[in-house]
């Protein structure tokens, strides 16, 4: 019990403490008490019950309530910060006490639960975990009770295990690099045999300012794809420079071209 362990100094806030509430079953030496060391109203209640070797199931509710109130008064007197939970408990105890003292009609007695039952349940539940906390604290704890046993290895070489690789990863890597490589594919530009400028001249020579010439007549299939492209670019360039004009009489009709005057 935490309170019983505390050495006997009957001083609170530097003042010797002399007045002990008459009903408190607390040895004077326990008064140094750190009243504020209670872990809450349940803890305080359990303390009061255990100090008197009472059975939780048999709480003399009137006596316990009185003691609890006196404790609260003491705490207030010492200006200890009182958590709201303590006051809630006080109200609850008062309620239980009043219900306990009221005569119960014989008929209702059978069904009605003992007004203390919920309090007992909570006290028991809390007590279980108080004990569990003590048991936990008693476990051999690392660094407090037992310690790492180690010995330095003489040799310090650290070997690195290379990471594993699977074939799927390898393929994935290849896929990525190839996809990327496609973006970098070089399009070799060969020196053109026929320059656009040269073709522009040739086209202009072919055309006349008065007569329209069929657009298709400008192209010579025997020059191949490259020749056709060059001719087309030459025509575009001539159009841009406003040296010729294209005429189409209706959609899909043949296109004709003539030199601008």
């Amino acid at each position, binding site marked *: 019990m*935490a309170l019983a362990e505390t050495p006997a100094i009957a001083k609170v806030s530097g003042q010797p403490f002399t007045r002990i509430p008459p009903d408190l079953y607390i040895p004077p030496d326990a008064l140094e008490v750190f009243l504020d060391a209670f*872990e*809450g*109203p*349940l*803890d305080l209640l359990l303390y009061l019950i255990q100090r008197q*070797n*009472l*059975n*939780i*199931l*048999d*709480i*003399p509710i009137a006596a316990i309530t009185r003691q609890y109130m006196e404790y609260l008064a003491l705490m207030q007197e010492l200006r200890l910060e009182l*958590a709201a*939970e303590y006051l809630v*408990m006080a109200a609850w105890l008062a309620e239980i006490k009043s219900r306990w003292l009221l005569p119960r009609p014989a008929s209702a007695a059978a069904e009605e*639960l*003992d007004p*203390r*039952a919920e309090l*007992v*349940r*909570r006290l*028991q*539940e*809390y*007590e*279980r*975990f*108080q*004990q*569990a*906390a*003590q*048991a*936990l*604290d*008693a*476990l*051999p*704890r*690392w*660094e*407090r*009770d*037992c*310690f*790492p*046993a*180690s*010995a*330095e*290895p003489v040799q310090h070489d650290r070997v690195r295990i290379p990471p594993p690789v699977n074939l799927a990863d390898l393929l994935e890597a290849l896929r990525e690099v190839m996809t990327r490589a496609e973006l970098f594919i070089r399009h070799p530009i060969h020196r053109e045999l026929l320059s656009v400028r040269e073709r522009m001249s040739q086209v202009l020579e072919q055309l006349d300012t008065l007569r329209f010439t069929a657009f298709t007549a400008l192209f010579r299939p025997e020059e191949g794809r490259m020749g056709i492209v060059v001719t087309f670019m030459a025509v575009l360039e001539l159009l841009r420079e406003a040296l010729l004009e294209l005429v189409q009489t209706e959609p899909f009709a043949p296109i004709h071209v003539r030199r601008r005057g």
Partner: protein
Amino acid sequence: MALPELPIILEALLLAAGEPLTLDRLLDAFPETERPEREDLRAALVRLAADYAGRGMELVEVASGFRLQVPKTFAPWVSRLSEERAAHYSRALLETLALIAYRQPITRGEIEEVRGVSVSSSIMKTLQDRDWIKIIGHREVPGRPALYATTRMFLDYFNLKNLGDLPPLAAPRDLAAIGAALEGHADPSGASSADSLPQTEFPDV
């Protein structure tokens, strides 16, 4: 030179590691061609543990594996060796930790309900900083409070292999039993059965 025996190799490995080693990590220390069977490894560990009876070390299995440690017996000498005092934890912290350990997953509100007081944030922070507890989810109720659970570090730290190794929690009495018991004791001064108190189930602490 003859190869050292398996338990001796394990001793060397555990001493050199300075941290818990799983069976798998122990097995990995052997080249594939010389890797012992798992059962042989276990048997060797058992032999080794027996060797340490009455010695300055013990072989224990905790959540993260097997480790060598200096047993509690030697704490008086060892603690004098280092200036640092092991941290002392408050009752509030231990109670909170106990609730999380035994009742996980649990919300802060549920801890507060049992303890009857609010749980300070600094306690939760200390427990998390120590890696003893972690948030493993949220309860799907308004506010979605965090659900706390203990970690493997917690088990390691308290020398436990798993949560089943925790000291047994006193059995709860259901309300009906409490009611019945109360009915039976109309007279408060009557013979109360002190032996029914839950704390008797605990080892003396």
